[in-house]
């Protein structure tokens, strides 16, 4: 579903991604972990071209999005992203947040988009907030709306860029519950997170990044019981207390 090949990314003199190679199969749940500044957010943001790789190739669902003139807006319709800061549209109601892109971009009728939007709101437990504005919701609720907004695009891939990092501790679980529930489906998920419990529970593949490289990848069992690299062990020992 997603093929990352020989990707490098520079921010000025900063070399933030170093020769990254990664395959995400259709339906696979990949969790990317690693310390701050390891390049994991940059990597996931390359997957929908919010960042453009300096060199290398990224193929999403058969489309080389790093090619010049790649149909990137078309690809983005089926690659949804959930952001750390939620990024809901504050001037729109919750339901409008869900229906805006489906009606304007995918040209789905307003009725149909509203109907499916309400169903997704129901699924994240916020149907009664359909007419509220984002500012009236808690952080956890906003992030659940953001997930519903992503789902209402009927994506084949969902990218989560540290979805719980901006949340109060007591709100993290409600968002993780929604994500765990989502992971039971066939949708492809790439999740950048510090939530090791989530990684253990849903990941097919765990990627550990440090200093712009992928240091280690493997199943959660391998990862949490028998990591190879000392750097991985150190990271895990600090984070799993």
């Amino acid at each position, binding site marked *: 579903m997603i093929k990352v090949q020989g990707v490098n990314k520079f921010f000025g003199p900063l070399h933030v991604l170093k020769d990254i190679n990664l395959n995400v199969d259709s339906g696979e749940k990949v969790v990317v972990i690693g310390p701050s500044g390891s390049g994991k957010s940059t990597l996931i943001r390359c997957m*929908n071209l*919010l960042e453009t790789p300096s060199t290398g190739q990224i193929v999403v669902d058969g489309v080389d999005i790093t090619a010049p003139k790649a149909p990137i*807006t*078309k690809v*983005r*319709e089926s*690659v*949804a*992203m959930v*952001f750390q*800061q939620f*990024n*809901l*549209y*504050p*001037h729109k109601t919750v339901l409008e947040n869900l229906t*805006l*892109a489906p009606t*304007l*971009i*995918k040209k789905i009728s307003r009725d149909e988009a509203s109907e499916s939007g309400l169903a997704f709101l129901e699924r994240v437990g916020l149907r009664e907030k359909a007419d509220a504005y984002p*500012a009236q919701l808690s952080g956890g609720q906003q992030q659940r709306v953001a997930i519903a*907004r992503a789902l209402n*695009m009927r994506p084949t891939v969902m990218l989560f860029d540290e979805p719980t990092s901006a949340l109060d501790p007591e709100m993290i679980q409600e968002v993780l519950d929604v994500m765990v529930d989502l992971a039971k489906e066939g949708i492809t998920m790439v999740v950048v997170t510090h939530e090791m419990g989530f990684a253990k529970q849903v990941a097919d593949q765990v990627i550990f990044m440090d200093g712009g490289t992928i240091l280690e990848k493997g199943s959660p069992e391998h990862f949490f019981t028998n990591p190879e690299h000392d750097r991985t062990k150190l990271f895990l020992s600090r984070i799993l207390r």
Partner: protein
Amino acid sequence: MPGPFAGFKWLALINDWSVFAEGFVQTILLSALGLTLALGLGIFFGLLGTSHVKLFKLLNRVYVEFIQNTPLVIQIFFLYHGLPHLGIMLPVFVVGVLGVGVYHGAYIAEVIRAGVESVPRGQLEAAYSQGFSYWGAMIHIVLPQAKRISYPPLTNQAVNLIKNTSVLAMVAGGELMYHADSWSSNNLYYGPSYVVTGLLYLSLCFPLASFAKRMERKLEVSS
């Protein structure tokens, strides 16, 4: 010797009320057209300023800095006294519209640019991530939010524009200040003339300014 506000001076003014009325109407027309021009220029150059294209940014800076850092009076003099030497004769009303329009366009450009830049980058990214193009994201996501933030300073610009039409009096602009000035320099009844003129400007500007205040409070509540 009668005081500057002697009763007969007021009576003379009331007798000649049509002079002031004519100026008042001209000022309103001038302001309306000037504001339309200023908004057009301001939105265009303001958006240029938010672009990542260096040339567009440069155009924005040249316009804004040049206009903001020279006096309006000189710009009006240039249009009225300077352009005829280049063979361009503009009616004084057009000089007025162009003068205040271009002048306040520069300020409005800054208001628009600041408004767009105050919308968090994440909004544009969220829109992109859903498949919006740059213009789609601008029109549906960024500009509606920038608009809300820009209303109060835009209204202030409208108020300033109305007041600044009075500069046209220096080139016989035919608006309120000019009529007040020429009427009172004939009969030397400056007192009533300037008081009434001031009140007429106030009657235009104060409602606008209060509207801006109300908007500002509303924004505070909703954010």
